[in-house]
């Protein structure tokens, strides 16, 4: 528990520091940060509290969603390689949003986009699920489904000639630049509800580590447990993809790092993986804004660059976590 508090404190400190970072040079920046009601109508106040703050909150919420989705993906397939990108979930969400935007049904960041993404994510995940007959096949078939859908998104984006195609393609590589306060109103309730549902299903996901047959022998249906976990993770991934695009590597790395800290029990893991996902994404997004202003670096590259070394280190040190 102490470690969890440390993670939350680190997250709070990093959030405060991130408020001071950005392309615009704000005079007296700490005065605005420590006094949120100071000089409310100034451009500086707007930059810090209406542009940076929502973006920081979004990084925390999206990072948490992906951290939990990763725990469910690895736990329910009983495989250390699983993440929502490999199961076809992320690509399915992308196809859903892309179809919605190009058919002029929704705009990125809207509730409609979340619904499109959820439909895409759920359909792709269920498609993978219906073809696979074992936990291992979920991974191999998921990789195939994911490859097909990613190719479809890429082809459609390169063929699209519309003015907004560029922003769609920007989004498809993952960026928190398009986040608005409205995005938070979608992210927060979904994170809370799915987080609770994940916490509920977690002990059953623990059982899956025994193998499907042993789960049967003690009276449970492994596929049913998996289906529950998949529905939750598809919703979590859908809300992140529809609001900030697909962000590489986070859902894979965060659960491993968390497991190194607290062991394999999924209930505890959910909290730690969420906090670690939030921390990495916030760090990556702050770096993407602060390193070469006014240009922003692609967030997916930074999450990989940051998450991968930590992942490799934890796996090297904690060799018996995943044998």
């Amino acid at each position, binding site marked *: 528990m102490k470690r969890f508090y440390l993670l939350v404190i680190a997250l709070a400190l990093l959030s405060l520091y991130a408020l001071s970072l950005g392309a615009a040079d704000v005079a007296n920046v700490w005065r605005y940060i420590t006094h949120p009601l100071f000089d409310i109508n100034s451009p500086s106040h707007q930059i810090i509290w209406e542009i940076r703050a929502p973006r920081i909150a979004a990084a925390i919420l999206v990072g948490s969603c992906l951290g939990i989705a990763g725990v469910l993906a690895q736990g329910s397939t*009983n495989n*250390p390689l699983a993440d929502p990108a490999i199961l076809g979930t992320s690509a399915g969400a992308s196809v859903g949003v892309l179809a919605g935007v190009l058919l002029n049904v929704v705009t990125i960041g809207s509730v409609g986009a979340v619904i499109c993404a959820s439909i895409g994510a759920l359909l792709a995940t269920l498609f993978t699920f219906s073809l696979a007959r074992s936990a291992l096949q979920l991974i191999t078939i998921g990789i195939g489904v994911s490859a097909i859908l990613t190719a479809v998104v890429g082809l459609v984006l390169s063929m699209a000639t519309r003015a907004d195609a560029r922003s769609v393609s920007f989004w498809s590589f993952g960026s928190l630049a398009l986040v608005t306060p409205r995005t938070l109103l979608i992210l927060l309730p979904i994170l809370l509800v799915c987080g609770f549902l994940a916490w509920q299903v977690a002990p059953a996901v*623990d*059982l899956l*580590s*025994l*193998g499907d*047959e*042993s*789960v*049967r*022998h*003690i*009276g*449970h*249906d492994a596929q049913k447990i998996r289906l529950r976990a998949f529905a939750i993770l598809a919703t979590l991934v859908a809300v992140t993809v529809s609001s900030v695009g697909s962000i590489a590597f986070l859902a894979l790395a965060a659960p491993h790092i968390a*497991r190194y800290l607290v*062991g*394999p*029990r999924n209930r505890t893991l959910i909290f730690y993986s969420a906090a670690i996902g939030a921390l990495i994404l916030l760090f990556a997004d702050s770096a993407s804004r602060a390193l070469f202003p006014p240009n922003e670096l692609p967030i997916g590259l930074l999450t990989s660059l940051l998450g991968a070394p930590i992942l490799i280190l934890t796996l090297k040190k904690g060799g*018996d*976590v*995943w*044998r």
Partner: protein
Amino acid sequence: MAMISLQDVAITRGRRLVIDGFSAALEAGTITAIVGPNGCGKSSLLAAIAGDIPLTRGEISLAGRDISEISLSQQAELRSVVLQNRNYWLSYTVREVIAMGQNRDAQQRMDAIIEVLNMTTFADQSVTTLSGGQAQRVEIARALIRDSEIYLLDEPLAAQDSQSKSRVISILQKLRDQGKTILVIAHSDKQSLSWCDHVIDTLA
């Protein structure tokens, strides 16, 4: 009434008919071993009795009820299963793995089971650090901690040293004396199975 009854059972794995026309009746309060060379289908037979694989033909019943007609949880109440070749991925402790999915009654037997299977020295260790024989005893503990009428064990002695072997045998014999029905799969020769009441050779 036979606790485990198999009637004209046929099992197909892949495209091969591994078991064809197998019948047997196992009474309560007995230990039965099924023996045969590698690939003769004895593990498939155990999997079919456990309800893991469908039958190509025939009927299997536990305590007089056709297993295709009873629910997963009813089957779980009737029988406990020990599989072989256990491979653990995650670093749960031995106690955590044994407790997984068990009710409170079963969990109260935890210390006794750990004691009787001589697992006290590694009970709080991660299952990923265990030797083959230790991991197999964890599997045996997962089955024996459940209070079932029927125990199905796939090669429970294969990786055990002689001391552990005799411990497991005496536990199984005690259960038999309490009226439990025990089925063991083995590929050892019949002489070393003198502790069993019946030996069925799949080739015969």
